[in-house]
């Protein structure tokens, strides 16, 4: 198992290198640092001198891959690619274009992001599974049919409407919780209740429908017939046998997102003014802070690959037939 995990993590290196190279080409190849400096400075102030200074202050004044002015190994290491891209493998993200330390900001903002994303994730998973099992329980009845229709209708509503509508209804009309904001400690619950609720409702339609198809595939298996033949009630069959056996397809979709949870949700955090990594990313996008966006792309990819490894490991936990070797 350990050998397998190590091997999988080694496999991840070429992929991360690919991600790294791809983002580097995207950020430095499509537009030269000069273009970016000109845009950041604004066309009014962008003379040659200002551009050179802007680049020098932020370390963009090096050649991309090969520094002919240096000697030996420094020819290859004292370049933009090493400085701005390869450094990320050691989680050194450097400074943002406006000067603040990216790594510190990420550490500060992880907590609020997790505080929203984790409850949303757990609650929507539970709600979707329970609802879909109920639909499967009532399969081939009018309840199932209309349940699916409602799911499709829920899926067809943009998540923006859930957020805007929820804020308007719960905060403005009923005045139950503040519209947006964030606080630590016990106050947190007041601020997080609404975003979590909206997050759960917004994902309910697609989640329920997805799990329903998974469970419907399981329900025609032989072990279900055996369980029924033993005289178990249909509810026991569904929640004990079918749920357990459907865990593999469920885990495939679920575990991979767990590490990415702390990256937060762009929409939720921006609408509810939660100081997490999602709103950090959105601010960076709106302020065109490329250093931050680059770092977030890299972290996101690392988390995705970690998620894939975790998925494989989770298979061995729920299904003793799966052996990783």
């Amino acid at each position, binding site marked *: 198992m350990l050998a397998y995990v190590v091997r999988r993590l080694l496999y991840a290196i*070429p*992929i*991360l290198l*690919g*991600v790294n190279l*791809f*983002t580097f080409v*995207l*950020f430095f190849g*499509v*537009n030269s640092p000069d*273009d*970016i400096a*000109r*845009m950041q400075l604004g066309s009014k102030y962008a003379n040659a001198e200002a551009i050179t200074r802007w680049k020098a202050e932020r370390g963009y004044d090096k050649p991309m891959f090969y520094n002919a002015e240096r000697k030996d190994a420094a020819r290859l290491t004292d370049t933009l690619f090493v400085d701005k891209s390869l450094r990320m493998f050691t989680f050194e993200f450097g400074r943002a274009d406006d000067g603040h330390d990216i790594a510190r900001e990420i550490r500060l903002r992880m907590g609020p992001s997790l505080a929203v994303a984790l409850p949303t994730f757990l609650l929507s998973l539970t709600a979707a599974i329970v609802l879909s099992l109920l639909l499967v329980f009532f399969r081939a009845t009018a309840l199932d049919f209309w349940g699916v229709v409602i799911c*499709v*209708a829920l*899926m*067809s*509503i*943009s*998540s*923006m*409407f859930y957020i*805007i509508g929820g*804020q*308007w209804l719960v905060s*403005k009309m009923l005045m139950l919780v503040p519209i947006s904001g964030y606080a630590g400690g016990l106050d947190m619950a007041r601020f997080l209740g609404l975003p979590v609720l909206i997050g759960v409702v917004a994902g309910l339609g697609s989640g329920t429908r997805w799990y329903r198809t998974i469970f419907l595939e399981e329900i025609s298996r032989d072990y279900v017939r055996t369980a029924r033949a033993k005289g178990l009630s249909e509810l026991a069959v569904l929640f004990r046998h079918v749920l357990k056996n459907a865990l593999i397809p469920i885990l495939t979709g679920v575990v991979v997102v767990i590490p*990415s949870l702390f*990256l937060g949700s*762009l*929409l939720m955090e*921006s609408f509810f003014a939660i100081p997490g990594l999602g709103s950090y*990313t*959105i601010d960076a*996008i*709106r302020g*065109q802070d*490329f250093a931050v*966006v*680059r770092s*977030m*792309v890299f972290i*996101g*990819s690392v988390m*995705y*690959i970690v998620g894939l490894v975790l998925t494989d490991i989770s298979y061995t936990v729920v299904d003793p037939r799966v052996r990783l070797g």
Partner: protein
Amino acid sequence: MNILPVPLLTDCLIFLLALAAVALAVQAARHTPSREAWRRLGQRPVAMACATILLVFAAIGFLDSLHYREQLPPGPGDQAAKAVYSSEVLSVLDALLTPLRVQTEKTYSAPFARVLFQREMLELPDGGQAWVYPRLAHGASHLPDGAAMLPDLARRLLWTPLAALLVTAAALLALAAPAARIRGGGVLDAARSILAGRSTLAWRAALLVTFLAALCIAAGVALAPFYHVLGTDKVGQDVLYLSLKSIRTGLVIGTLTTLIMLPFAIALGIAAGYLGGWVDDAIQYAYTVLNSIPSVLLIAASVLMMQVMIDSNPQWFDTAAQRSDARLLALCAILGITSWTSLCRLLRGETLKLRELDYVQAARAFGASTAAILRRHILPNVMHIVLITVVLDFSSLVLAEAVLSYVGIGVDPTTISFGTMINMARAELAREPVVWWSLASAFVFMLVLVLAANLLADAVRDAFDPRRG
């Protein structure tokens, strides 16, 4: 008046898409198994109803894709030799909606309102001043007072059901006439069997939707020149106009994204699955790398870079419309780059299965070239996956546009889209009293479009996926 046609890039691609759809239809009619699948699809009333709704949307989008520039009247000093065209790019839809487009108000006004949403200081005829709600410049301006509105509405709406019935009857006749010729028997009999739901395809559902759509359009034609049916937005633009214009943006993003990525996904997926070896490894590596970047971030990074590129090269575009159109197309391309991986993987898996089947082995044994095998034997047999993916992706892309535009990495702020509408309407709910109509219109239009697409996608999947019965 002289006009100068301005085919925008996305327009050309839309025409290409329409051609491709026709080619696909011809191909499907010849190919017996897929004709069966299409028939299974057409037998479902839900599918026919949704397809009709989508056709209405597509017609609006198509009208909005025929762009032109009007010739300006020659100025006093100009020579007549060289025509001067307005820098404003219009579409046929704009021309049809001219009253909606030009009859703008000062700021917000509610649906069917006679007065502005905000009070203003007005000069009275007797020299004094008053703090009142001013009358709208265009909305309901033909009425003497508020009491005259209901009779006026009734009078204008009176003929709309009749018009809708006529349109539906014409459609029914157009369906019944060929059916009568094929089967024999009278046209009336054929029409009766369609209305009774006895036709092979579920035409009755399509006709019902046609009636409803015709009713809505007739009501719009009757009322929109005289009222702001859905109110006006912050700068006084008619919300109905904005909603209709948003349709094209949504359709472009939903369809062109897939159109752009399809050739790559199909070619690479089939090549990886059939050829195997290092080709397979390289393609798998490429899509694993792209797949591991969270899509929002990848889109954000690409769009930011595209913005810098467009901003640093203003000489590429003649008009603002061309620039925002290029941005829309670039957004489609970027969304395509991030979404081809899943289709590619599906096609690779299916091809891996197909290449071991007897008929492919036989073709190889007969000495057919690899290209011929891929084209004749593999490609037609993976097309159902392509079709299902295209239809399934459509609705999520329309929804994605709204979110991306909110984040600031979507369409150009000057492009009218559901995303920009929602974005502007977001702050309006905080006003007192609430300005709800922009958001509600965007909600309804988007819901109808996406719901129809989702329901159709389900039906397509059921009809074409051999694993579902």
